């Protein structure tokens, strides 16, 4: 039961490691950005999970509801999502310019071109 109760955290760890692995292992710059996104998303889920109060309702004031979930992590993570979107946009813009400058977005190929200078 204990293990299943931590289901969300297992997902978080799995997504985090999967994303982190993609960032490190892939040479394709767009794939790296996707990995980075996965990695960031796992943290969003971490925050949302820790805001959950067992038995709590959505944090909107209603009659007859005593226990609410903690809304603060949700607000925090909205900010973090915006940051994540900005990072992704900037990363993709850089990839576009790298493609224009090198004609490729594979890291080994770019490295080879720089070495041969």
């Amino acid at each position: 039961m204990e293990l299943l109760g931590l289901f969300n955290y297992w997902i978080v760890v799995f997504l985090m490691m999967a994303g982190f692995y993609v960032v490190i292992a892939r040479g394709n710059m767009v794939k790296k950005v996707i990995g980075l996104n996965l990695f960031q998303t796992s943290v969003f889920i971490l925050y949302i999970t820790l805001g959950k109060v067992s038995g709590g309702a959505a944090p909107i004031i209603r009659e007859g509801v005593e226990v609410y979930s903690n809304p603060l992590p949700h607000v925090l993570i909205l900010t973090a999502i915006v940051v994540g979107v900005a990072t992704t946009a900037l990363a993709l813009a850089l990839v576009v310019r790298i493609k224009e400058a090198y004609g490729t977005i594979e890291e080994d190929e770019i490295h080879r071109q720089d070495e041969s200078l």
Partner: protein
Amino acid sequence: MIADQLPILQVVIPLLAAPLCLLARDGRLAWALSQAAALAALAVSVALLLTVQADGPISYAIGGWAAPYGIEYRIDLLAAYVLLLISFIGAVALPYAARSAAAEVDAPRLPFFYSAWLLCVAGLLGITATGDAFNLFVFLEISSLSTYILVGLGRDRRALTAAYQYLIMGTIGATFILIGVGLLYMMTGTLNMADLAERLPALTGTRTVRAALAFLCVGISLKLALFPLHLWLPNAYAYAPSVVSVLLAATATKVAAYVLLRFVFTVFGAEFVFGAMRFDTVLLPLALVAVFSASATAIFQDNVKRLFAYSSVAQIGYVVLGISLATPLGLTAAILHLFNHALMKGALFMALGCVAYRAGAVNLDAMAGLAKRMPWTFAAIVAGGLSLVGVPLTVGFISKWYLVQAALEDGMWWVAALVLAGSLLAVIYVWRVVEAGYLRAPAADTVVREAPLSLIAPTWILVAANVYFGVNTDLTAGLAGRAAALLMGGVP
């Protein structure tokens, strides 16, 4: 009236000036706006430092929402000192940017350049001013994202890959910090640093808090470019526009070091980090390896900007070394070296920018024999180099003096010996640059002249600061000593 609003003005002035620069749509106008904002920020930080020295720490509740529910800005002595450093470098580098950036960045992109510059400065100032852990992450991302843009504006196409590399590593670092802050929130239910510091001692036995400390330290070390997480730094510094290298080398890593100090000493407390978790056994060896491996790599660099970038990694080693000693004297050395290293690297990268402006490149071959053509520039490189080595009468000497004293006080004479040995490596790489400039024959057809006054003057302001603060240490060492004592005493 205005005096009460200083903590927020410090951050808001550059933050609001940034979109105005975009609206200006003209490089010169954008520059004038940035310069005005930078000077205003400098005035605010001087006023803040004077206030903090006279009346103690300032607490500012944003929007009138009292901490711990609202976001608190908290300016203590250390914060005021770092704020002054950032806004001073920001204000001195901008007159230099007018000429240097105009030469290295396409004219239509100049308003964007100044806008990103101001956002970067606003982010760095915000990180320092805030007393809220999540707000710190937001400002960290503001400064980081604008830094990636600034690096990517370099002329060389390798600037693009350097910016991309920096973005990937920087985002991983920032996300680690976010995870650490989340774990802390999970255990304590608060994000306010003073509040965290109050609640954490009861929870230090839990694995979550330990994991939070680990995540935060790794994340901050990535931003700090502590060996072995420094791989993004050399290329980012080498291929960024010259004036961006000045700003980054002088401020970005310094603010990361400030964040490390803040979390280790204010939030977690030295007793937990160094007493129970023995973090010094990790930081001390890493710092020493950073000093030696980075200095050794610097010796073999051909691109002089890259050479001094590796030297920055080594200097960060000295800062972390001071922190890992975890004594008042060690901390004084670390805080002092933050400021002093900013002065020397600022001066050196500015001088290199002068070379880039006239000679077009900054590798050793392009610099051969230029000392006769550009006497003031190369004199600045020599002065900055001497400061880097730690020759008496320069700020470098003062830092090393305190660091060696701190190591000896702890009975670690071998650390003191290694610090001095590290300086010898600095002699070698500085000598390579000096030798190229003064002793090698210039290319026959060279038409290089001395750099214009608008580049030389800011360079020499920083060189003069190197000497002034090397002779008159009352301000820097006195402040650093008191800031260190406050940090060691827990929440100031």
